[in-house]
């Protein structure tokens, strides 16, 4: 067993249990941010270690940047419409 992967896995399980526990705590408007923040942290752990982004060639960052850029475009354009009606 790869020890680094085991540590990442332990962190993922801990974060999952933490986010379930947090969903029962009345956080008000901060609740969704806690849930999605933890989800993003888990995604980052999976991406960096299980998908080898930490040791990947710099070239694979290119499609990732393209994704983030278009994500920002569609989010900004959609929300600037729906939130301001």
């Amino acid at each position, binding site marked *: *067993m*790869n020890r680094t*992967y*085991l540590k*990442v*896995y332990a962190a*993922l*399980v801990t974060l*999952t*249990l933490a*986010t*379930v526990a947090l*969903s*029962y*705590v*009345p*956080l008000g408007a901060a*609740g*969704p941010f806690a*849930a*999605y923040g*933890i*989800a993003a942290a*888990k*995604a980052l752990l*999976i*991406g960096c*270690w*299980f*998908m080898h982004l930490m040791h*990947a*060639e710099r*070239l*694979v960052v*290119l*499609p*990732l940047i*393209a*994704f983030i850029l*278009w*994500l920002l475009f*569609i*989010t900004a354009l*959609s*929300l600037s419409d*729906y*939130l301001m009606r």
Partner: protein
Amino acid sequence: MTESQRQTVFGAWIFLASEALVFAGLFLGYIVYSLWYGSAFAEATAEHQDIFLGTANTLILLTSSLTMAQAVDSKQNRVAVRNWLLVTALLGVVFLAIKAWEWHVHYAEQLMPGAAFNVSRQQPGIEMYFLLYFLLTGLHFLHLLIGVLLVSLLIWINYKELKLDWNPVEIGGLYWHFVDIVWVFLFAMFYLRGRS
């Protein structure tokens, strides 16, 4: 890494980036409707989602990502790769079975959007919640089903000792982890609201 290995990894990331945008568009729809129907979304989650099954499925999928990463890490050890892949596929099937059971319960409660939707629990937005729920978990289910078939193919390639000039297990692993990440967000969107 050989040249063709590098090319396939790069190609896989281009594919995954476009896949991510497909889900991003649907996530955006969810964000807009959850801003409009916040209380309905919270109510639908609290009353109709089983937090135990959802958490169990999340842990199952995270475990399958660990076993998939171990398969990729086992590289030249052919038997170890095959065993890790078998465990990964098995965990994927368990996830699909639990998800199908949850859908069955929701269907029996008449929560499938359409003419038969149970209007007695009407609060505007509940039907939209379930529309997005079935659409997104359905699309994720389809991706995981393809993932299980892909891992089965990897096991067959491993069994036949086919020699390729790139590493199919690594590419399959990238796809598998991507599907896992999608679920991590779906879990937060459809299971964790309105419980406090």
